[in-house]
């Protein structure tokens, strides 16, 4: 049951203000997104149409604390097919970004952000990797990127990179 007292009517504007979130109000709930979603095909708990509906209704806390917003595989099928140009993949990113700022980041993405901010890449490059590359006739790759660490420190939520 939805408790109208717990709804936040401004949530949709908050989402609309994020990068790529602007078109959320255009949704007329046709369900093209959900019909073509490869994640939804496997597991019903991820339902893009329902997520958009929840945002428009103002179910802020429910959405931001949920596990399902992290399940978008970013395939852009819904983004490409949406007749209203809602740009769903970007809206899912916006929801994840707001959730991360509020401390609800999924551990998998927290770890990815930590690695990139520390090493400038998703993997720590060890001497072993460059030795292997040399044997394969490939040039060595750089191990650390101080400027990426700086960008991460200036932009990512503090609790993510600590």
């Amino acid at each position, binding site marked *: 049951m939805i408790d109208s007292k717990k709804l936040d009517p401004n949530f949709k504007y908050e989402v609309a203000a994020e*990068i790529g979130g602007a078109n959320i109000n255009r949704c007329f709930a046709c369900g093209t997104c959900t019909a073509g979603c*490869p994640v939804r095909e496997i597991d019903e708990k991820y339902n893009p149409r329902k997520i958009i509906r929840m945002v428009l209704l103002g179910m802020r806390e429910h959405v931001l604390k949920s596990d399902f917003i992290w399940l978008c595989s970013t395939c852009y099928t819904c983004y490409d097919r949406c007749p209203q140009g809602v740009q769903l993949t970007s809206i899912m990113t916006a929801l994840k*970004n707001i959730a*991360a700022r509020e401390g609800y980041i999924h551990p998998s993405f927290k770890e990815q*952000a930590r690695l990139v901010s520390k090493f400038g890449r998703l993997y720590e490059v060890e001497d072993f990797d460059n030795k292997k590359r040399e044997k394969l006739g490939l040039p060595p790759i750089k191990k650390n990127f101080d400027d990426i660490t700086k960008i991460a420190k200036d932009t990512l939520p503090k609790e*993510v990179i600590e």
Partner: protein
Amino acid sequence: MKYALFLGCTIPVRGQNYEMSAREVAKELGIEFVDLADFSCCGFPVKSTNAEASLIIAARNIAIAAKKGEKICTLCNACTSVLTEANKELSENKEIREKVNKELGKIGLEFKPGVEIKHFSRILYEDIGIEKISKKIKKDLSKLSISVHYGCHYLRPSELYDCFDDAENPSTVENLVAVTGAAVIDYKNKLECCGGAILGVEEDIALSMAKQKLDNVTANKVDALVTICPFCSIMYEDNQRKIESKFNVEYNLPVLYYPQVLGLALGIDQKKLGFRLNKVKAKVVLDKAGVEI
């Protein structure tokens, strides 16, 4: 034809066979690759956490290429989409560009519009072209049957890619396979995602997505699945054993990077194409291609 080769995170440490074969094929077709040591992660892995950070990291890489006057060739689909999206957004939106440039200024860089960014397969298709490639083919691969997985970010969002391929009915990579003489085998739900981006979120869902693909591809008689993205490849090749034991099925399906297949057809030594690094051994493919192991 000259490009700065953008490797991203996964290829240089987990997909060296893709890198080796791409470099060999490029050499053979007259594409010069330049290595810029300062290229980092593209920004994709932090996009879910903070889209602005992702945009600045992408802009940083583009600015590094611009400083050297180079165009960018990507091998990974996710790198392609994140860099292309940032390039478009920052070129068209002055307000965002100024904001990002304020951050880049702190590390001595500036984003300026005008850097071309293309996936290697797109360069082969558009800039080298099927006709020129066909004239260079030395080995007939007509005994091979191959299915293609494009991967999402090579095609979508389609607004990023000037409609160079049809996102709902793509053909570029299949044409690139066909030019080697191999038979291209279509299959059910060809456009479906590998699930790679949510492997760390819910492994069961991601592996089920990859399983569906492996089921659909192996419903036909094929010798290999061809990919053009390292993460799709991780889902179908590195995780193939795991999927087999989890679901009690058997595929034994070789998963090859496209330049490995083209490399064979161009007569390049399989050792230089990194076949030894393929986790599902491609012996059948090499046998049918008449290549000595």
